[in-house]
């Protein structure tokens, strides 16, 4: 494996994604919403919009929602008052799958630009004439898609932790975030989701001819994450540590199949035959 060539290709692809404003502007706005505005809204809104006097009890809805919390999380909510339960439920529980949008979005955007953009800009053929093997080219592009997606996700996670703990300090009176389930979510599931976004971009790149087409098609993967959000919020699925590990394992299995297909599609013969 020629790691120098792999690194050069990954750096070049990253540089090109940075130059593509269509790619990175949404990638900058969405994290801002998810890791800053959303937790602030969850934590601060109940106090801002609660009636100043009399009934109904402003925490009545909170009690209804927190009743959806599965038994695995009951211990985390044990001993908390309603305001604290709301903070933990909304920002520590419901929002968890929302952060998974970030690795998916980052890697699929970078992947679309890397695989389809290269062909769209008519630079792919020159790359295919270099001594780099199919595996080296594929790996360079995977690194350019997945690694920054993960780094940005983890940076967003740190920002999210700071925002949640700071905004909820008056209510919680302690640093309570992240809870146990977030660690496998970030370390195990986020990389699987990032790989999923990249692999989807590779597969889609073999069927479309422009970055925008690939960008829009990879966007449909959001449905997977939204399904997790809905399942989590309605109590159908609880991303406890055990469930998170299982979801991650399932995603890695899907990734393995998609990457295998992607490698086959990105081989020199296949790329040219499809071009």
């Amino acid at each position, binding site marked *: 494996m020629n790691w*120098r060539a792999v690194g*050069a290709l990954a750096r070049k692809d990253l540089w*090109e994604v940075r130059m593509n404003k269509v790619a990175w502007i949404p990638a900058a706005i969405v994290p801002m919403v998810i890791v800053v505005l959303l937790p602030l809204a969850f934590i601060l809104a109940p106090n801002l919009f609660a009636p100043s006097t009399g009934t109904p009890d402003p925490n009545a809805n909170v009690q209804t929602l927190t009743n959806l919390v599965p038994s695995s999380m009951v211990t985390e909510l044990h001993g908390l008052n309603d305001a604290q339960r709301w903070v933990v439920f909304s920002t520590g529980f419901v929002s968890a799958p929302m952060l998974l949008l970030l690795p998916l979005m980052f890697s699929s955007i970078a992947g679309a630009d890397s695989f389809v953009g290269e062909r769209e800009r008519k630079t792919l*053929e*020159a790359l*295919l004439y270099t*001594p780099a093997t199919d595996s080296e080219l594929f790996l360079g592009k995977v690194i350019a898609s997945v690694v920054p997606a993960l780094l940005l996700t983890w940076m967003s996670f740190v920002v999210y932790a700071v925002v949640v703990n700071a905004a909820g300090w008056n209510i919680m009176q302690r640093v309570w975030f992240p809870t146990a389930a977030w660690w496998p979510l970030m370390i195990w599931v986020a990389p699987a989701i990032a790989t999923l976004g990249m692999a989807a971009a590779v597969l889609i790149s073999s069927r479309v001819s422009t970055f925008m087409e690939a960008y829009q098609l990879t966007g449909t993967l959001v449905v997977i994450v939204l399904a997790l959000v809905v399942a989590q919020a309605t109590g159908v699925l609880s991303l406890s540590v055990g469930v998170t590990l299982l979801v991650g394992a399932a995603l890695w299995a899907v990734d393995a199949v998609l990457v295998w297909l992607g490698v086959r599609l990105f081989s020199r013969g296949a790329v040219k*035959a499809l071009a």
Partner: protein
Amino acid sequence: MDAIQTDALSRRYGNLTAVADVTLTVARGEVFGVLGPNGAGKTTMVRLLNGVLAPSAGSCRVLGLDPARQGSGLRRRTGVLTESPALYERMTARENLRFFGTMYGMPAGKLAARADAMLEAFGLAERADAKVGGFSKGMKQRLALARALLHEPEVLFLDEPTAALDPEAARRVTELIMEFTRQAGRTVFLCTHYLPEAQRLCDRVAVLNRGRLIATGTLAELARTLWHGTWVDVECLVASAPDLLEAVRVVAGVTDARLDGPDGTRLAVQVEGEERIPAVVRAIVERGGQVVRVNAREHTLEDVYFELQGEPAHAQPAVASETSGRGGRR
């Protein structure tokens, strides 16, 4: 050892046959032209010979290596210039060369100096740090040629290198190709449908049509297979005597002779070979003819190409049109 050998090389895309049973050899140091219209299979040949595509049937070897199985090792020793320059337009000229040099496995220390030298040699030093997107087509193609030669390949593949360029830019690129290939003794595989360029650059040519090789050889060899004899134009000071034409026709090796033009001062004589021309001139002089100009017509690559493709290159001259078969073409 030949630089390139193909044996019944074929490539199909579904039902479409892009290259069919092509067998040819290219010697080391030779500039070899592959001619043919769009869709003849030229680009597919370049891809096959660099291991970017695998053959559907047959085989090929480049520098003794099998491109399909040893492509990576082979591509370290070949350079390719495609029709579109395929450069990263948001990167500078220097960044492009350094990126591709790294991809070709050049050591970092050598790469920086070599990239600067190539930018200088190709007249791009002043724009080395400018983004390629702002370059003219000619500058981009020069940079792409510099990239193809950056790692000092033993075999250079040129796929329509001047097709998208204006005449001035095309000439500059052609001069650079000559300079950087002839001097270094590189083997060149030039695909083009720009025939004057091929005639100027190539030692031998192959003509492709719909993926099939229809002829290969030097221009003279191809002309000999297509036309028998050479037409010679003889111009005299005054109109020729009536019996002059008959005297020329009986010279050994003359196969045809006609007056060319209305004033009787010009003759067109077909001889078996150029060695017969002195005898023709002698016969004219002996009959009192005052010869002022003798010109043996040469076949151009364009003549050969269109003859092979089954189309006339252009309108035939009066004399030529009167002769039969292939011998009549200019």
